[in-house]
């Protein structure tokens, strides 16, 4: 079985090497400060006890007041999995460092995240749209993309036929 590392363990391990790189940690993930992302990722990749050389998945999440980029990491030699996150609070022009220098597998995934979520990856070698055409208005995976006058936020408020209830005003 793949051992899923707790966010606390990952954070502790990072802190031994990079004392102020960790912004937050939960049982599930460790959050890294954006300005130390590259060093932290390089450490996670090169540390012989973690050896997280395989970037499984990279994606962005719109949390309304901030954007998150989630990295699902894997160690093939040690059969470990870990989750690392980084946040950007700039709603208009979110930017995080690109991890392409650490994991080349991030190349297309960062392009995808830029295209659909509008997060800019500083230092990416070729940051262009990939699925949508140049000139497409906005970045559709953002929660407010449908928020035109008279429109509404994306998301299913309630099941069909269900009375309006505590979930009213979701999103």
């Amino acid at each position, binding site marked *: 079985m793949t051992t899923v590392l707790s966010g606390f363990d990952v954070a502790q391990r990072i802190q031994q090497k990079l004392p102020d790189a960790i912004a937050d940690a939960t049982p*599930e993930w460790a959050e890294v400060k954006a300005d130390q992302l590259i060093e932290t990722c390089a450490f996670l990749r090169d540390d012989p006890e973690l050896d997280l*050389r*395989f970037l*499984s998945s990279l*994606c962005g999440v719109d949390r309304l007041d901030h954007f998150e980029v989630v990295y699902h990491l894997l160690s093939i030699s040690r059969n470990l999995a870990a989750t690392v996150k980084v946040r950007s609070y700039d709603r208009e022009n979110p930017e995080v460092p690109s991890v392409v220098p650490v994991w080349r*597998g991030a190349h297309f995934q960062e392009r995808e995240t830029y295209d659909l979520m509008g997060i800019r990856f500083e230092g990416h070698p070729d940051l262009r749209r990939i*699925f949508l055409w140049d000139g497409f208005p906005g970045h559709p995976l953002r929660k407010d993309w449908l928020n035109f006058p008279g429109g509404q936020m994306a998301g299913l408020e309630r099941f069909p036929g269900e009375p309006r209830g505590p979930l009213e005003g979701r999103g």
Partner: protein
Amino acid sequence: MKTEPFVVNIGPQHPSTHGVFRMRLTLDGERITDADMVIGYLHRSMEKLAEERSFTQVIPFTDRTDYVAAMTGNLAYVLAVEKLCGIEAPERAQWLRVIMSELQRFASHSMAVGVFANDCGAWQTPVMHMFREREKILDLFEMACGARLTTNYMRIGGVSRDIPPEFLPAAHKLLAELPTRMDEYEGLLVENEIIVARSRGVGVLPAELAIATSVSGPMLRGSGVAWDIRKADPYAAYGRVEFDICVGTNGDVYDRFLVRVAEMRQSIRILEQALEMMPGGPVAVDIPVALRPPVGEAYGRIESPRGELGFYVVSDGGPAPYRFHIRSPSYINLTPLRDLAIGATVADAIVILGSIDIVVGEVDR
């Protein structure tokens, strides 16, 4: 003499690109000096659509990402949601999931191998042979769920319905003939002079580069990395069946092809065990129609025929996923395409792309 680089577009509508996919090659004579890919022709924005659907309503989307292997798409998604909700599917459903996934893997690999032979110049004959067995597998799917391609079979907490009584005899009959068919294919293709000449030593992907570029599935194993999520992190009932991880040695196009052929044999092996070991009992647990997973997130990964298929599902406690992300192996396996294509000839680029085995529905989503 004055020369200049020549740009040639292969696709979007071209038989060698296996869908609406465009390779933009810059050529110096016959040699490729730069390669770019243009995708998005099939982009349906499933990740956004899923935010407006209930968790169960998302399952049909997963058929339509990788439409050559719908069963594994279904499975990966429901496993992620089950992880999020802490639901465990009953025993029989776990085995049905293994059976369907392996049938699907055989069908998908037979298509990959047949179409790859097509790319090598064996025009249509191997494909037609491969499709014969694929058809029989699709007939089994039709028995089980009424559909052949967009199966929509897996459910959160089990599968949509039990298999009908005629399924098992038909599956046993098919399994009895598959090994002889495999002998036939291997005799036809594996030592075939044209295939060997076109693929050996072409598109070599070293193991280091494969891991660095997040390549997974038969492509990673072709480079000699023994990584299979069915073994490394067993899901459904894979922990209880015996099979081998098939690896290549050189990481070239030929090895990727051999890994797929060998995996088809292993799928037969798994199916034989699974059909024996499947117990009776219920095939699904009751889940609320209005399923509201707890606030949180889950990443579920499985070994699809193309590699690591992952679903990242974020719930805010509402009826629909707050965020739904597909980590599609076809898309990420294209990352080293540029490295593999540079220095190769145009004819090699076709074979290299064929050996990656993309499904454009999954590349674009």
